[in-house]
């Protein structure tokens, strides 16, 4: 019980953090806290296998996946403070609290039986008991989960894949374009300076300073621009700004390469 009473407040607070955190990364961290605590509660409840799985699958795999995606779409993309749907927050609060009260009351009322404990079931070891069940009574469901996994993998590949419509430019093409740009607009044909050159920071999102002290925006990798990294401006506003000035979403390179050298390089 000590474990429970130690962990329960932490979990509730972390879960609340999921609702109130402004930054998505903070929310992800809160969720990780909840999941690890949950793993401990599994261990406390005679479920060592699930404890391990929870750590490995949830905090190890799933949370990492979340963080990867967060990084892809912009770590600091945040919700605007203003609720767009009228009354949504109030209604959510009312319904949520009513639901919690009602459900916990009802369920608590109904679980008045004595706790049997898993000593008998875990006599041969928890993993052994689970395996016996999985490969006997639940073998069909187990097989289906295998199919589900296959489908999920293929689905993820299909969804993330983008068909290349035009062949990638070759080195010769890029070179020719650089020279043409130079001829037409006088743009410097060589590599732009890397970010942070002569600047006070050498972070990747800090533009390089030219010898006369003016910043050179082109030195910042193009894909960082739509994702406000560390700035205070609203994500929505940044997106609007990009869309007003920059190229269309489909033409925009998706990776961190220099925009001048990449064209639709997909991962």
């Amino acid at each position, binding site marked *: 019980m000590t474990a429970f009473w130690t962990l329960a407040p932490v979990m509730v607070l972390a879960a609340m953090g999921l609702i109130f955190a402004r930054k998505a990364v903070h929310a992800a961290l809160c969720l990780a806290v909840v999941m690890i605590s949950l793993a401990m509660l599994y261990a406390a409840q005679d479920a060592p296998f699930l404890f391990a799985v929870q750590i490995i699958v949830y905090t190890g795999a799933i949370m990492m996946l979340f963080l990867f995606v967060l990084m892809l779409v912009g770590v600091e993309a945040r919700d605007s403070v203003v609720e*767009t*749907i009228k009354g*949504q927050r109030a*209604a*959510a609060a009312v*319904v*949520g609290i*009513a*639901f919690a009260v*009602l*459900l916990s009351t*009802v369920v608590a009322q109904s679980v008045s039986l004595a706790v049997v404990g898993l000593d008998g079931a875990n006599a041969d070891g928890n993993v052994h008991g689970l395996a016996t069940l999985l490969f006997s009574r639940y073998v069909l469901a187990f097989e289906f989960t295998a199919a589900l996994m296959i489908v999920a993998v293929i689905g993820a590949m299909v969804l993330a894949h983008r068909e290349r419509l035009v062949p990638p430019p070759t080195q010769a093409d890029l070179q020719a374009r650089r020279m043409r740009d130079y001829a037409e607009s006088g743009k410097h044909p060589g590599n732009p300076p890397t970010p942070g050159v002569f600047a006070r920071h050498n972070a990747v999102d800090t533009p390089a300073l030219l010898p006369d002290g003016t910043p050179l925006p082109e030195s910042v990798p193009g894909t960082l621009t739509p994702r406000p990294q560390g700035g205070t401006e609203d994500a929505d506003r940044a997106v609007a700004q990009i869309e007003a000035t920059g190229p269309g979403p489909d033409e925009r390179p998706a990776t961190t390469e220099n925009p001048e050298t990449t064209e639709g390089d997909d991962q």
Partner: protein
Amino acid sequence: MLDLSWLLIAIPLAGAALLLTWGKESDAFGHLIATACSAASFVLGAIMFVELLGRDAGDRSVTTSLGTWIDAGHFHVDFAFTFDTLSSLFVLLITGVGTLIHVYSIGYMAHDERRRRFFAYLNLFIAAMLCLVLAADYLVLFLGWEGVGLASYLLIGFWQHKPSAAAAAKKAFVINRVGDLGMALAIMTCFAWFGTSSIAVVNDQIDTVSGTVATALGLLLLWGACGKSAQFPLQAWLLDAMEGPTPVSALIHAATMVTAGVYLVVRSHDVFDASPTARGFVIAVGLITLLAGAWIGCTKDDIKKSLAGSTMSQIGYMMLAAGLGPAGYAFAIFHLLTHGFFKANMFLGAGSVMHGMNDDVDMRRYGALRSAMPITFYTFGIGYLAIIGFPGTSGFFSKDKIIEAALAHNVWVGIGALVGAGVTAFYMTRMMLMTFFGEKRWREQVHPHESPSVMTTPLIVLAALSLFAGVMALGSWIEEWLEPATGHAVHHDPPLPIIVITLIVLLVVAAGVALAWLAYGRQQPAAEAPADSEVSFFTRAGRAELYGNAINDALVVRPVTHLTRALVWGDGKIIDGLVTGSADRIGEISGELRKPQTGFVRSYALMVLGGALVVLLGLLAVTLA
């Protein structure tokens, strides 16, 4: 040979089908096919008639069945035809006069581009009319009854480009439907009481049912007959029907179809024998129509409408005779035949006059045509003598017999018939004088000329028939001939000797002729009809067809129109209102239900959670309860 009745019908029907389906290439000879079909039917009918003549009196009825038409439960109808003494006369009249009119139409319709269609309709009419008179079952009769109605409708409205013709056809059709309602009810009554609609069975078994049923059946049959024969109170369509081509008026609206009502009454003679009340109604209808038709005939300046009034009047005579019971059936049919001849003759003569006068029908613009078209004049004159009952002509015998029988039945009925004869003489003389005598009142650019021989030959034949058809009455041949079909004729002695009655009739007729001569022969009729305000009430009423149309309008047309409008209004506002209103309500409810569909997934999630909460509350309520 006598079981070939169906062939009589089939020939013209095939002709009609052929002409209606054949293309333009048959325009050149289609009318010849139609005439040949009609003539073939006539020849066959004549052969069958001769064969019937050769049989014994008790054996002169042959019924042939083509098979079962309807077999539903207890209701069984054979498609059967009866060729007996009564129908044989009709067959000869229909096909004979019909063929003559076909021939006449070849000339009359020569310049009509839809002539082939006209002949197809004529053949259709012949077939339907033969079906009517040959039918052995009221239902088969009804088939022909509707068939002639259809043909009549098509032919009245043949010049459908004229709004008046289209309206007249519609009017005839609608009023005929009113009559058909009575006919249909009569057939249903037959089925209800006798379990069959066979004419022979109904007539045999009429004595087994109560007098009330017989009276009801008789009145329903009379109702049907009134519609078809333009008898009071369903007379209004006949005068408008003159919008059709003149051969149509001669064939359908004078000689044959309009006499179908008389045929029906005579054919159902046992029903009327069983019900004196129904007979009384027949007499009353006949008498009223007789006088009304004559009245109208006196006042119309339109030669065809005047003749149409005359037709009504003469059919009134036939109805009157048929209503007299066994004493009158044979006379009714006799007058029907002679009238078929002389009235067809006069209608065709009128058509010939119109042909020469650029289709003008106003008698006030005729005059002095006897020298311009002599053949028409002489044939028309013979028809005239026949209709007024000049001694020796067919009309003399037939009409005289009816007046005698009417006098024997009831003095007042007889006097009514007598007055009718006088008035007939008056208006027919008026017509003769205005058309063929006096001075020319022709319009400019009218050059009357005699019609071609294809038109005058039928006139001559019909004139001869009008003159000599009276031989059928010699030695009471017609009564004996019809005895197997209409029963033995019982004669009551008239209140006066027959020779005295004949003299009185002739006197009355002479008075009518003299009166007409005084009014229209000695002085010239005005070239323009006097305005309604200048003429007597009698003329005004006659011109307005005794206000029959006004009465129909006031009693039926306007109330029904208003009722229809009310129903349409009710349909639009109440029925449609309910339907569209409920649809509108559903639309409004849907519009309200649409509002939560914001497209925001979070709203939907809120609803899901709210729903889960409600389910939870429900579970709780159930558990606690």
